[in-house]
């Protein structure tokens, strides 16, 4: 009996490990990355941009959107006369969301005399490619890879999106300046880099802004019960609760927060995008007057955004999302850099990329000490089962 129990317990533990792996893999992957382009001749005779994206596999929806955005931008530029009269050539390769495939595809693009790389889309393959690109001094712009590491491989690597911890900083600023919060609470996923990174930066920014962090609670990847943590938050008298996670868990946390009597706003990150899709009208009430940061707002009345949305809808017959918008901006960043450099020489293009000042669909993009953009972040409010543009915050 004793022995049986031991065997069973061992089996159960093994099973739970397996279950952990499966859900871990399933919850990753909202980050993407973009592109880059460079040329080695003195004057511009031809421009070849390599586009890397997962067009099949688990993260294909991100890759396809980013690729569509980039292609839309290049076609637009070509229609308007290209770069100083030279048409941009581009080649799109599918890396299936896999790091090995991505490196192979990158090598193929290099052999096709690529000047700049626009890619990759998700963080893991992007890091694999960034390592290679740094050695080759290949100018590289990822549209959507948000992991902080990506741009640390070399000064030739840039991105169009902001990084995960930056959103924590922005939302802490928003809580302090716009909501006038004095006490804030944080509930985050301890086993997810995206969530814990944003939580840590929210905490440090909140403290430096003079707000009091009254609760800093974690939960595991498989947890469905958050009432204990939320009861603590409710008792701590927090003015706002920061929940940096993906929409499925946010839907659960929102409902439970209200059931333990916490009626203050919840704040979140771009992982919240889509939360109303999974909630019915009653469920959405739990998230009324909650705010989250995002790369762009699809119903923004800004002329650039409206124009982009219309063009995207016309070309692909579907609504654009953040990934498409970032792909579009990454493409323009590359084209502008080549134009500024006046050549496709790699070092010249890298230098031009560093001095980027581009007013795009996802905000105004400049680069500071590294390839991470300094840009303003869109804060979206949830109200009556709908998204409303609240403000744009720069941190």
């Amino acid at each position, binding site marked *: 009996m004793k022995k049986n129990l031991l065997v069973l317990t061992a089996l159960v533990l093994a099973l739970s490990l397996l279950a952990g792996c499966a859900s871990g893999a399933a919850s990753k992957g909202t980050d993407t990355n973009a592109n880059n382009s460079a040329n080695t001749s003195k004057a511009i005779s031809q421009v070849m941009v390599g586009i890397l994206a997962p067009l099949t596999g688990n993260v294909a929806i991100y890759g396809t959107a980013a690729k569509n955005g980039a292609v839309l931008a290049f076609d637009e530029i070509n229609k308007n006369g290209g770069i100083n009269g030279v048409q941009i050539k581009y080649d799109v390769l599918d890396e299936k969301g896999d790091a090995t495939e991505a490196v192979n595809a990158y090598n193929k693009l290099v052999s096709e005399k690529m000047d700049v790389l626009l890619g990759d889309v998700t963080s893991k393959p992007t890091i694999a490619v960034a390592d290679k690109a740094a050695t080759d001094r290949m100018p590289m712009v990822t549209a959507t890879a948000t992991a902080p590491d990506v741009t640390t491989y070399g000064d030739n690597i840039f991105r169009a999106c902001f990084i995960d911890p930056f959103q924590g900083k922005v939302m802490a600023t928003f809580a302090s300046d716009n909501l006038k919060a004095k006490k804030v609470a944080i509930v985050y996923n301890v086993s997810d880099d995206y969530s814990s990174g944003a939580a840590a930066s929210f905490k440090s920014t909140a403290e430096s802004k003079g707000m009091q962090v009254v609760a800093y609670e*974690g939960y595991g990847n498989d947890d469905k019960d958050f009432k204990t943590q939320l009861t603590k938050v409710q008792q701590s008298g927090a003015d706002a609760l920061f929940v940096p996670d993906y929409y499925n868990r946010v839907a659960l946390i929102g409902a439970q927060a209200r059931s333990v*009597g916490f009626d203050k706003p919840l704040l979140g990150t771009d992982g919240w995008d889509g939360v109303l899709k999974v*909630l019915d009208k009653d469920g959405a009430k739990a998230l009324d007057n909650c705010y989250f940061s995002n790369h762009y707002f699809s119903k923004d009345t800004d002329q650039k955004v409206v124009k982009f949305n219309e063009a995207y809808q016309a070309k692909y017959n579907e609504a654009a999302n953040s990934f498409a918008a970032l792909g579009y901006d990454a493409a323009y960043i590359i084209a502008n850099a080549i134009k500024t450099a006046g050549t496709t020489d790699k070092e010249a293009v890298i230098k031009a990329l560093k001095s980027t000042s581009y007013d795009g669909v996802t905000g105004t993009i400049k680069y500071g000490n590294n390839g991470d953009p300094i840009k303003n972040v869109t804060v979206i409010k949830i109200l009556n089962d709908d998204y409303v543009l609240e403000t744009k915050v720069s941190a």
Partner: protein
Amino acid sequence: MGFIKQLLNGLQLGSIYALIAIGYTMVYGIVQLINFAHGDIIMVGGYICIMLIPILAQFGIPAWISVFGAVVLCAILGVLIEIVAYKPLRNSPRMSALITAIGVSLFLENLFMLLFSPDPRNVPQMFNVTMPSIGGFNLSFPTLITIIVSVLIMIGLQVFIKKTKIGKAMRAVSEDTDTARLMGVNVNATISITFAIGSGLAAVATVLYASAYPQIDPLMGSFIGIKAFIAAVLGGIGLIPGAMVGGIVLGVAESLAKAYISSQLADAVVYGILIIVLLVKPSGILGKNRSEKV
């Protein structure tokens, strides 16, 4: 006040664990099988509910009524699994039946991923009741109903096992299958009834679970199933009161560890307790050292 709230959170979670743990423990008591597919019955119950609720809503029937449909269908599914997957293996080594149970679990999970996609689905509100808040203390209705329903079911089950003819037959089969058969007990029917009751209770747990955590996905059963299994072992597997005690202890320990020790380390603390309990008393809190029967 804070302590009472956390205790109630723990009792709610623990009641759900207990209801599920009863399914593990009854089946183990009668056929010495860890029914790994039990957790997935909960998941199936959840999908039955979200299919039924829109139909009920058309007739203006409250969502929680779907519990009756879920109980009936889950009980049928439990019996079906027993007849198809476990009965042919009743005289095989225990390990074969255990592996089959894991197979059934994976089959159900993958079948439902195929049918409903792996994305989580949100469950509509089960109970449309707002509780009055007394002095800033608002007990939510799902918490209250979960604790009450669990207690009633546990008492009812205890009476059923001790007093009714079927209950006596179940105890006889778990004591000694062959002698029970010689005494005229229909062993196969008794085992089927055990599976039906266990699965039906899992469906009740589903509805209570969904009222508190309104989201289901095809893989939800494996995690909550393992927690409930641990609760059953903690209380003493094979003993129905053990499942209740184990469930409540696990739920409360989880809640209090999160609240007062560290939410980041809660699981480590809870399983640390579990390991210590099993080291000191391997048969579980209520287990007698020889007993492994209902």
